[in-house]
């Protein structure tokens, strides 16, 4: 579905992503792991057109989406929830979700998707007319995900969905994410929280200093303490390296 070929991203003299190639097949959940500053966000931001591609190629099926505008890429069926959620705080939950479906013309389909998604994420139904900035961190993350789903994407890229969430919420968010696959969406999940992400992913890539260091089945990476320690610099039992972040919900 998505194939990234020798993609590089530069900010001035700094090369954030260096000739990275990766593939995401239809129906997969792929985790893109790596420490802070590894270039994960730069990589998916370049895929969606928010930051300029220095070199390389991004294909969605047989369509070349390299250097297209984000709005055009979204209309082709790829979307992304940015790191830090970026819900529209001044708008209500309802208004956020309407913007999520702004590109769709099938009103009946939008209504049906909305009803189904609200059934899956009941807290959003409860807070439907509240201003989004009054939602808790976990609720805002759910809103960001459902908002992205409202455009009915073929490929959804989630940037750090567990960032800033309490540990018990992290598991809940990942469980919700894995149920999205049943709605026919392919997922590319960027995470620092490798342990949780690997429980739900099929395959994983590890990115460090802008380069792919590992690619393989999620189970292979998760099952090997050596690999985990080597590529992600974490022991098997300590959990997320961003535990400090997780404390402030």
């Amino acid at each position, binding site marked *: 579905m998505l194939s990234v070929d020798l993609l590089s991203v530069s900010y001035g003299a700094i090369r954030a992503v260096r000739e990275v190639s990766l593939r995401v097949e239809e129906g997969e959940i792929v985790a893109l792991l790596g420490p802070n500053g590894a270039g994960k966000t730069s990589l998916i931001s370049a895929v*969606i057109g*928010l930051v300029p591609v220095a070199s390389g190629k991004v294909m969605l099926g047989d369509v070349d989406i390299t250097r297209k*505008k*984000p*709005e055009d890429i*979204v*209309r082709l069926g790829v*979307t*992304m929830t*940015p*790191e*830090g*959620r*970026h*819900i*529209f*705080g*001044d*708008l209500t939950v309802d*208004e956020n979700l*309407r*913007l*999520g479906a*702004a*590109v769709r013309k099938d009103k009946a389909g939008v209504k049906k998707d909305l009803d189904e998604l609200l059934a899956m994420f009941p807290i959003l139904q409860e807070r439907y007319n509240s201003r*989004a*900035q009054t939602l808790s*961190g976990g609720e*805002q993350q759910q809103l960001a995900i459902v*908002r*992205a789903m409202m*455009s009915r994407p073929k490929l959804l890229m989630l940037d*750090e969905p567990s*960032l*800033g969430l309490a540990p018990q919420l992290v598991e809940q968010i990942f469980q919700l994410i894995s149920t999205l696959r049943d709605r026919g969406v392919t997922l590319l999940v960027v995470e620092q929280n490798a342990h949780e992400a690997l429980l739900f992913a099929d395959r994983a890539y590890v990115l460090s200093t802008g380069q792919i260091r590992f690619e393989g089945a999620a189970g292979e990476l998760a099952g090997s303490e050596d690999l985990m320690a080597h590529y992600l610099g974490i022991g098997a039992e300590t959990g997320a390296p961003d535990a400090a*972040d997780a404390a402030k919900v």
Partner: protein
Amino acid sequence: MEYVVQQALNALSIGGEYALLALGLAIVFSVMGLVNFAHGEFITISGYTMYALFIFAAPTSAWGLLPIGILASITAAVVFERLAFRPIRNAPATTGLLTAFGLSIIVKNFFVTVVATRSKAVPTPEFFTEMITIGTINIQVLQILEGAVTGVALMLLLILLRHTNIGLAMRAASTDFNTVRLMGIRANQVVLAAFAISGFLAGLAAIFIIARRGAADPFMGFAPVLKAFVAAVLGGFGSLAGAVVGGFALGIAEVVFQVVLPESIAGYRDAFVFLFVGGLLILRPQGIFGQSAQFGDKEG
């Protein structure tokens, strides 16, 4: 009693004019962070378009000039965006500011060179200056119209911002334009809509300004937009509700000072108004509706 009602209506109509202009400034600023110092030129272009139509087409009724005046202002806003502001959209804020200044100077001097420095008469419907009597109170039609039109425009804008995708996108873009693009909404459309609305509101204000002055001159947009800037800052720059409240607050303050100041210093009214605004801003530097930081904007 009659005096009080007269002055209240005065405050409302002046405040309405400032609100329309301040709102136009605020919409463009909130969507793309541009302080459009060329906003007054929408009024000037509107005035000269009506003048040109009056001279060359010689319409039998002045009513026909009004929609053309509004249309001219919208067109000017859209053309400015397309030709001047779009190429520098991602440049630093000062680039936008200087571009707007440049545009403003170009437009003013265009009219000075091509038409004249002195003002040119532009007719508006005589109906505007008629007086109607309600009980013992005489009111000029223009004042009632100004209040009513401002009210209707604000209501339409509210509906647009609440119930249409482009309106929601404009509100969302004020805090997070990139994420709006991730909804598949075209950045160019959002910016264009913001400019078109800004031009439309300036066009409405232009009609009333021209009706009161009865003429167009190259510098006619300067004073009203200066006041609109003050109103927008008072309300909290970038806040739409703030622009409206700031506009009316400024209108009311002007009329109050006009009334209470002794005749010998009434000429310094604006100085007193600005002093009052300055005092308010010392107490509340971010303006009435301004937020010093956006809560929930970015965490983690």
